[in-house]
């Protein structure tokens, strides 16, 4: 297992390094020196301060060649120094920390939701193939895959607003937004998080249901199922104990791929529903060309995704020795 993990890490760490270069490319992409814009901005606001400009110049090594600049930024990331947001004039770290936590929480909730929905639905659809239930879920899953997340969010928000005059944006009620963490705030979070969770989960649920159904259908026809049945095992016990276990296998391995789509999709939904996750912050940063913030956030989201993939590798390694052994 340790060897297996090391092998995976040997792939992911260079990948992360490569991604950091791409992210730095995003920072450098806008034409001109970002400090020039900043100086213009400060002059316009009448807050020009020669000392601060020089400090920033030294901080990012703006006079040095590009690889030095890259290294100054990348080595900062390693100790969680993400650079400064020029828009907010604060370190990116301070702006990102809370939102990052919320992004992860939302991601975990969505994955849990996806799995708790997809597994039973997939099993029922496969066992009762071509039944009314199967057709209903097939239809729903087509709709789920076909609807862009943000559209679903828009329609739900509109329905809630038009029919009940409630706004279902955000993750907290007004009185809790800036409040420190407490039981009340946590309960308030639970009251709000299910809407984006369902919205983000539909797509993944639909996809995973299809995969599980197809896998299970392949397994159900195999001789070992017949054998177990002939030995008198009760039908549900049989199904849950053998074919489902095997059918879940590709399920876990593709779960790694759902994380990138999840973090990607959550970005637009978060913007629509103004959720306190990193998505809207990234968009704002890109729109105002606040590039250190943008680059750092892209890198963080990538790192999160890789961690997610790693977790699904580990789970898969536990479930299937063949993968662990590198066969």
């Amino acid at each position, binding site marked *: 297992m340790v060897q297996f993990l090391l092998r995976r890490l040997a792939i992911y760490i260079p*990948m992360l390094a490569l991604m950091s270069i791409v992210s730095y490319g995003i920072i450098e992409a806008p034409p001109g020196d970002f400090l020039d814009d900043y100086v213009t901005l400060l002059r316009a606001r009448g807050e020009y301060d020669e000392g601060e400009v020089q400090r920033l110049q030294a901080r990012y090594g703006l006079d040095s060649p590009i690889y030095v600049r890259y290294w100054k930024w990348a080595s900062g990331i390693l100790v969680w120094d993400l650079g400064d947001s020029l828009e907010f004039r604060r370190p990116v770290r301070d702006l990102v920390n809370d939102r990052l936590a919320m992004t992860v929480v939302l991601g975990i909730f969505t994955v849990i939701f996806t799995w708790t929905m997809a597994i039973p639905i997939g099993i029922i659809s496969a066992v009762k193939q071509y039944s009314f239930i199967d057709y209903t879920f097939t239809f729903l899953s087509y709709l789920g895959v076909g609807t862009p997340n943000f559209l679903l969010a828009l329609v739900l928000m509109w329905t809630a*607003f*038009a029919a009940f005059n409630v706004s279902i944006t955000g993750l907290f009620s007004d009185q809790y937004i800036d409040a420190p963490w407490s039981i009340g705030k946590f309960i308030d979070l639970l009251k709000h998080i299910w809407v984006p969770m369902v919205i983000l989960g539909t797509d993944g649920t639909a996809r995973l249901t299809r995969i599980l159904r197809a896998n299970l259908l392949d397994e159900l026809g195999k001789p070992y199922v017949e054998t177990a049945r002939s030995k008198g095992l009760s039908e549900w016990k049989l199904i849950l104990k053998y074919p489902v276990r095997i059918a879940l296998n590709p399920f876990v391995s593709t779960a790694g791929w759902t994380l990138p789509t999840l973090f990607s999709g959550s*970005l637009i939904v978060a913007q*629509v529903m103004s959720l306190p996750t990193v998505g809207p912050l990234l968009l704002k940063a890109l729109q105002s060309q606040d590039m250190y913030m943008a*680059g750092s956030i892209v890198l963080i989201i990538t790192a999160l995704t890789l961690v997610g993939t790693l977790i699904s590798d580990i789970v898969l390694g536990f479930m299937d020795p063949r993968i662990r052994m590198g066969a």
Partner: protein
Amino acid sequence: MASVAVPKTQEDGTQSVYVASQWKLVWWRFRRHRLAIIGTVIVGILYLVSLFPEFLATHDPHERNAKKLYLSPTPVHIFDGWLPRPYVNGLKSERNPETLALDFEVDYEKKYRIQYFVHGYEYKMLGLITTDWHLMGLDTDDDLAAFHMLGTDRMGRDLWSRLMLATRISMSVGLLGVLISLFLGILLGGLSGYYSGWMDVLIQRLIEFLRSIPTIPLWIALAAAVPRDWSVVKVYFAITVLISFIGWTTLAREVRGRFLVLREDDFVVAARVYGSSPLRTIFRHMVPNFISHIIATTTLAIPSMIIAETSLSFLGLGLKQPVISWGVLLFEAQQIRAVASAPWLLVPGLFVLISVLAFNFMGDGLRDAADPYSAHG
């Protein structure tokens, strides 16, 4: 198990199945998939719309009308008495006693017959022929005659006409994007599968890398880097190329997989032993074998391109005015209060949904039909 699938719908004897060409078998299999047929018809209609959007438009899609902001869809009456002669009622403006704003009310006294093949604003059909022919319209200059089948937006522009033009842009972005990713996919996947070795390792690592990064943040970042002073056409191509990068990895994997399987197959080995050149082996013997799979995968890749374009434009980072796409139209629906007062702004979303579903059904049918020799299906 490995018996040849005999189409049930085929009445002229099952014998013909043994002499039917592969494409005929594919067609028979495809025909049985009813949803796929429906999907194909819808896709066909959508592409027909994208060929002649101005002809179907009832108004100039860029024309603003300060008097008719957020006008709700005009109800169209199909029957006038007993005869099927479609007409719309006129409008009369009334001052709201409370808000003192000018509101429109339906004026049932007035009837305007909907005319077919009318002269309207001038445009170039297919970009070639200058004409002012339109399918439908009111033949009147009356300011109080309104014919907005899907209402108007915040600038008083006709949503139906805008939707027609948006269909052209959105559907063509999907098609063009998929062609670019098909090219990349076949080239890189083919290289990877045919030569294997270090080239295979390199390309597979690249694909793995691209698949493991969260796409949307990166694309948004890249889309934001598109210079703001670029011309409309340039932005269109830049966004299309960006979007095409989403799809090619799936296609490349598919192509590579097919190459790996076929490379060692008897007939390919036979061709090679017989002295056929690599190019001939690939295009004469291997490609016809998996082209149907490629078509199916390509069809299934289009929806994600359409969704990608819609998402980017919806965020205001993809296509922008004056280009009209479904995403650009949905951009207007970002404010939930605007949607609450003008729900018809969400109609472009319905088009996205329908087109995505249609492509998915069509692709599913094609995928099942792609291998007509398999037993299941």
